[in-house]
């Protein structure tokens, strides 16, 4: 199996050759997708949809692991065609890699966490964990389904890590070293700690409730004093444990809030717990009055549950983003003195080294080109949509993507010294300057604590005339029954449900606070590439004879230039659509471009170009049949022939709008123009309109050329004074800090490294599909689907969640006023408190759950 064949994914094969076969009704033996008829083999029992699936199937078969297919069929999951990587994973054996990712064990063995692509179901667990049987020297393999991460333990004397990685890849799971292992270990410990708190608080609550029940029953039926005292002491001891162990988290948080003078919801909670606990303990010792420990333990448990639920949802979103980090490639090809190439981690490259960057790869470090001509796409770095040409001597920056041929680069700067590194420092500054967020519930809590304190003091003062102990009792009762526990439980629950639902729609929310803030109107700063536009070069318009498109694509297939690729893929896509179904909706292609008149002489001819010559003068020329074709920049064309006036005019119009224009000459007569650019997404305009309706003013902030930005703004209905082009990352950061009128929040939407600082500094930063690693790290929310449509869904969900939270606040406040009034009037008996509190919790909680889950029908309409 050749490496090239492995590297080609089936879709890429179909796309490039343009020969999309019709699919037979036979399922691929590996991935269960339909097999193209052209690939059916009559003599074979197992059929495959692509070379990748065949390779994986044969490996699994050869290892005697066929049970995988049996297991998998019982699991209900969808599969993708396998695309085993052609990589040799040589970088995995380098010392720099070992220092970064390998964990040495005491027994001399090594462990590593590898993130696997393509993990779908339980059968994958089975297959991956058979690794020790397949490969000598591997001691253990444990796959975590949720994290798609396998921990492999092996004996370095008997097996090389690259061999392990190759084996995993041959099974169809491309491995990547798991980044941020230290952080995930800390998070795991944090999760365990929270779980322990929850468990302890729950157990104590259950037991204290039972004791409380006995005490209340004793109140009604009469109880001997010795038993009563005994029960009170048992209940008191349990209560103190609950307050001091799981409950301590509220005291810590409230103390921190008071010290930094940013009051939060934990302050009134801590106050209620402290006063209740102290009063209960005093009454216990004096053997008089009420002890409140049953209510307090319930309080602690309910509050912890609310926190736990929100924490879990945020962790899930966080882990999904973390996974994306690990998938970004982190190795590069180092060229050593005698011309050999070794794969090493990016961290092992030093200034002065020469690295090779192949087509489609990211430039690993800042440097100068020493060999090769190519085009690099700097869209993620600068926002510029048209790839720029590079040749020996040109300087290029880390983070740009090589979209042309192979390049060799002499490294000048690495790591933090690169342009990307500087931008990351800007990100840190953005994060530092971000004002502290006060969550809605915390803001409410701050007012709450003032109101409750005043009410408690008033109650105390009023009842003082009947004696101090009496007054204390009433004030304490008031503090406990008005504890905003419902608010603390319902708010995180609502946010957790909303975050969970967004996650199912591929919108990952890293913080509930960000979701809350989105509901307030304000302005949205949109980066152009990837959000409003498709982020890659596409054919916008074809001026001239449509029948020329097929021969042009046939010639351009021989070129590696990004413009050539755009023309080829456009043609292949069009052919596919025509063959599949005429009635099918073409995705975003103007209808007048779909038809190729088959009767045209050129189209029916054999489209095999001969005499292809591509010199570095901006064009390509070739012969098809007895016609001489020249395709290239208008300058290239005009060197050979005159461009007619109507085409010249069209060229000027399009070039002033920032598009790239390519001329086509047949037999030294310029007959057609192809206009290429970054096309606006079909749904962008509708999405901008619906955002405007929701009260957000959208503006464009792009690093791309000003004419391009102006033309895009026009197409999506954004006024031209709110569309700014040629904005540097520093200016983007400054724009985020600009005061806005009317007051509201600033939402930054972007995908590039150049947006990262602004994403970090904005009130809410949203990174979109296909973004750079830096922007993922800086943003609060990551949208894993392309386009603006998910944004409208995100905003609608956020507003809905906030409506539900406000409603909860009103309901729980009215409960509190009722209960507080009863307590102040001295009518609140412990029994009444024990009944009212669970009832109020139950109503508000069920209200919260019902309103946010039943919103599916109404919510879906407003998202459309």
């Amino acid at each position: 199996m050749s490496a090239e064949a492995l590297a080609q994914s089936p879709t890429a094969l179909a796309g490039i050759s343009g020969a999309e076969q019709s699919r037979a009704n036979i399922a691929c033996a590996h991935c269960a997708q339909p097999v193209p008829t052209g690939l059916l083999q009559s003599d074979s029992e197992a059929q495959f949809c692509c070379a990748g699936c065949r390779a994986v199937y044969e490996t699994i078969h050869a290892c005697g692991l066929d049970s995988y297919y049996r297991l998998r069929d019982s699991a209900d999951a969808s599969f993708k065609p396998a695309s085993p990587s052609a990589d040799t994973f040589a970088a995995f054996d380098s010392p720099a890699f070992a220092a970064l990712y390998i964990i040495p064990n005491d027994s001399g063995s090594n462990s590593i966490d590898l993130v696997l692509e393509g993990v779908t179901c339980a059968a994958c667990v089975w297959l991956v964990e058979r690794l020790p049987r397949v490969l000598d020297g591997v001691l253990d393999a444990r796959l975590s389904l949720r994290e798609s991460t396998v921990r492999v333990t092996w004996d370095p004397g008997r097996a090389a890590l690259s061999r392990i990685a190759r084996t995993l890849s041959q099974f169809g799971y491309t491995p990547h070293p798991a980044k941020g292992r230290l952080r995930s270990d800390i998070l795991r410990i944090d999760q365990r700690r929270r779980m322990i708190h929850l468990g302890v608080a729950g157990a104590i609550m259950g037991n204290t409730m039972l004791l409380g029940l006995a005490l209340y029953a004793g109140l009604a039926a009469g109880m001997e004093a010795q038993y009563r005292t005994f029960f009170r002491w048992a209940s008191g001891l349990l209560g103190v444990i609950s307050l001091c162990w799981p409950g301590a988290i509220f005291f810590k948080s409230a103390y921190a809030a008071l010290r930094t003078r940013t009051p939060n919801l934990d302050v009134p909670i801590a106050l209620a717990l402290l006063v209740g606990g102290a009063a209960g303990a005093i009454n216990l010792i004096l053997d008089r009055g009420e002890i409140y420990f049953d209510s307090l333990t319930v309080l602690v448990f309910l509050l912890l549950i609310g926190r736990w639920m929100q924490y879990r949802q945020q962790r899930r979103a966080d882990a999904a983003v973390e996974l994306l980090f690990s998938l970004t490639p982190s190795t590069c090809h180092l060229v050593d003195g005698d011309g050999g190439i070794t794969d090493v981690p990016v961290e092992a490259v030093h200034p002065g080294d020469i690295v090779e960057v192949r087509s489609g790869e990211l430039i690993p470090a800042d440097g100068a080109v020493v060999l090769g001509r190519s085009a690099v796409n700097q869209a993620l770095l600068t926002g510029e949509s048209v790839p720029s040409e590079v040749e020996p001597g040109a300087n290029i920056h880390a983070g740009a993507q090589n979209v042309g041929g192979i390049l060799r680069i002499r490294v000048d700067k690495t790591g933090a010294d690169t342009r990307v590194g500087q931008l990351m420092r800007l990100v840190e500054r953005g994060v530092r300057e971000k004002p502290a967020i006060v969550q809605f519930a915390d803001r409410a809590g701050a007012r709450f604590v003032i109101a409750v304190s005043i009410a408690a003091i008033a109650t105390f003062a009023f009842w003082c005339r009947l004696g101090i102990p009496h007054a204390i009792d009433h004030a304490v009762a008031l503090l406990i029954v008005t504890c905003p526990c419902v608010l603390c439980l319902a708010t995180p629950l609502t946010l957790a449900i909303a975050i969970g639902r967004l996650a199912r729609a591929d919108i990952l929310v890293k913080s509930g606070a960000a979701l809350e803030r989105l509901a307030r109107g304000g302005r949205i700063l949109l980066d152009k590439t990837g959000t409003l536009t498709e982020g890659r070069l596409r054919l916008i318009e074809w001026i001239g004879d449509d029948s020329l498109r097929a021969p042009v694509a046939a010639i351009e297939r021989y070129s590696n230039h990004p413009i050539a690729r755009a023309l080829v893929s456009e043609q292949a896509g069009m052919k596919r659509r025509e063959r599949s179904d005429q009635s099918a909706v073409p995705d975003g292609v103007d209808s007048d471009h779909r038809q190729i008149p088959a009767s045209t002489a050129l189209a029916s001819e054999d489209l095999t170009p001969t005499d292809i010559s591509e010199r570095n003068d901006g064009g390509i020329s070739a012969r098809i049949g007895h016609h001489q074709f020249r395709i290239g920049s208008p300058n290239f064309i005009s060197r050979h022939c005159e461009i007619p006036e109507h085409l010249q005019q069209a060229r000027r119009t399009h070039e002033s709008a920032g598009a790239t224009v390519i001329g086509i000459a047949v037999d030294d007569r310029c007959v057609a123009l192809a206009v290429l650019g970054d096309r606006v997404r079909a749904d962008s305009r509708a999405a901008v309109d619906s955002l405007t309706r929701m009260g957000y003013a959208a503006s464009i902030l792009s690093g791309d050329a000003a004419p391009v930005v102006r033309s895009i703004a026009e197409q999506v209905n954004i006024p031209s004074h709110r569309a700014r082009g040629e904005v540097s990352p520093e200016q983007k950061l400054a724009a985020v800090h600009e005061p806005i009128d009317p007051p509201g929040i600033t939402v930054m939407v972007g995908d590039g490294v150049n947006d990262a600082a602004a994403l970090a500094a904005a009130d809410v930063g949203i990174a979109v599909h296909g973004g750079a690693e830096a922007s993922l790290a800086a943003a609060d929310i990551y949208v894993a689907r392309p386009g603006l449509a998910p944004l409208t869904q995100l905003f609608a969900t956020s507003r809905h969640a906030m409506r539900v939270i406000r409603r909860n606040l009103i309901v729980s406040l009215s409960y509190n006023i009722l209960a507080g009034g009863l307590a102040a009037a001295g009518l609140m008996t412990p029994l009444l408190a024990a009944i009212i509190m669970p009832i109020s919790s139950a109503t508000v909680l069920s209200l919260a759950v019902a309103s946010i889950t039943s919103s599916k029908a109404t919510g879906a309409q407003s998202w459309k």
Partner: protein
Amino acid sequence: MEVIFIVLPLAILLAGVAVGAFLWAVRRGQYDDLEAPPCRVLFEDDRAPVTRASRPCKPPS
């Protein structure tokens, strides 16, 4: 009813044992991954037969 003075601490002690077992399980990482282990249980464990087969057969003495 004096028996309550023994039974109640005993009951709480019992609950304490359950909580202790829970703490032990959490600290051992039993709750870290709730998805893979349930499937792992269902796989017919083919490790055991392999080790048996690979063990050299001793001729009866």
